[in-house]
């Protein structure tokens, strides 16, 4: 049993390293994208083996649902942009080394061979030996697990990860939510979104799949959010699942999506950070410290913040996938 587990881990490790290597070394970008999707799957299995099912859940939602679609669409957008620029200037046959033709070449051609592998080898050796030294001196301690376990009754929830994320280290989670929002503001500041390139997919399969899958995804998202208070799950995972459902809708009918009402969209995007901040400031004023919960109110407040955060994360992921401000949204 233990021997088989070791064999399983070794095979998983070999697969992870091999896929990562081929993904980075691939000259064909589409192949690299497919390898990256595979890498996400193997990584989720690795998190399972590291006894971190929460992270495996997040990796499953992000890796399987969102990153693959995002990279595939980005690759196609890149092709459309470069092909469009090239057809603007058809007479530039010898591609200018800094021009758009060179970028198109880079999509297909292998990069020039490096003259020497010595710098890379030295770098890898130095970083590798540093990592090994760090691992060598790692104290054989259980980390912060006993501390968290000792204070679980004060947290208001039953799942230690949720207790850490939304109570003991709420500050980190708050800033993470803020970073997600800032990332979206950065994307929006770059301009309005282009059309997502899409080819016709006639037949009943796509609409039928959507009709079956999107409701199931919404129910699963809500379930994962609810499960977060006592088992692996929570706002980030649920938000990623709901976001993936939204991306599925965007992908299936890119030209038929009605633009969302701007005020509601902004309210939804900011709800997580806003509610978290409001609760934190209330805690500060009421004398429980910034982001502290009043006694007895920790469970309802955590659930409320998680619901708002899930909504914000899902909306932000879809908006980041579309990239760029919604159309008809150019008020000064």
């Amino acid at each position, binding site marked *: *049993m233990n021997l088989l587990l070791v064999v399983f881990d070794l095979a998983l490790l070999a697969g992870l390293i091999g896929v990562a290597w081929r993904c980075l070394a691939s000259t064909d970008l589409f192949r690299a994208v497919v390898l990256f999707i595979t890498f996400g799957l193997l990584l989720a299995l690795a998190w399972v083996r590291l006894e971190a099912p929460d992270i495996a859940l997040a990796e499953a939602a992000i890796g399987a649902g969102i990153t693959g679609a995002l990279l595939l669409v980005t690759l196609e957008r890149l092709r459309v942009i470069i092909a469009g620029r090239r057809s603007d200037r058809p007479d530039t046959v010898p591609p200018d080394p800094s021009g758009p033709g060179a970028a198109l070449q880079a999509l297909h051609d292998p990069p020039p061979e490096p003259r020497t592998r010595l710098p890379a080898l030295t770098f890898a050796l130095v970083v590798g030996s540093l990592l090994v030294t760090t691992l060598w001196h790692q104290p054989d301690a259980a980390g912060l697990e006993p501390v968290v376990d000792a204070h679980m009754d004060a947290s208001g929830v039953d799942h230690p990860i949720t207790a850490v994320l939304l109570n003991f280290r709420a500050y980190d989670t708050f800033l993470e939510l803020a970073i997600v929002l800032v990332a979206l503001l950065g994307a929006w500041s770059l301009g309005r979104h282009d059309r997502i390139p899409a080819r*016709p997919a006639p037949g009943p399969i796509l609409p039928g799949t959507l009709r079956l899958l999107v409701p199931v995804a919404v129910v699963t998202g809500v379930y994962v959010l609810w499960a977060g208070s006592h088992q692996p799950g929570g706002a980030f995972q649920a938000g990623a699942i709901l976001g993936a459902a939204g991306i599925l809708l965007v992908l299936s009918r890119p030209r038929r999506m009605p633009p969302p009402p701007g005020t509601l969209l902004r309210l939804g995007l900011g709800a997580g950070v806003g509610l978290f901040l409001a609760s934190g400031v209330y805690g500060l004023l009421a004398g429980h410290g910034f982001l502290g919960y009043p006694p007895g109110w920790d469970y309802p407040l955590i659930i409320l913040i998680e619901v708002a955060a899930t909504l914000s994360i899902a909306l932000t992921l879809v908006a980041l996938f579309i990239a760029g401000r919604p159309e008809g949204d150019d008020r000064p």
Partner: protein
Amino acid sequence: MTLFYLGAALFLLGTILLGLIRVLRGPGSGDRMLAALLFGTSGVAILLLLSMVLETPALVDVALVFALLAVVAAVAFVRQHGLPEPQDTPTRRGHHPPPEEPSDDR
């Protein structure tokens, strides 16, 4: 029984590693994408087996999310690369040219 589950999980992991050949060699993008989608299916089975082996019921949720969301990449692929033309009906092309605009309506 645990030993059997673990052996099956190891076998499935082996099939994923073997299937990587299809991703690396191709030749078409469809071959590569299909291989990755099948990895997703094997991954779901591995997760379910591991949830029995490691006695972690939460892994069933991970498998559920994987099974549910593997479709997103497939839909993205179909939307970007289009569906292959049916090969055995060459006359259809003359009578029904593929529409220029994507038919988003159901």
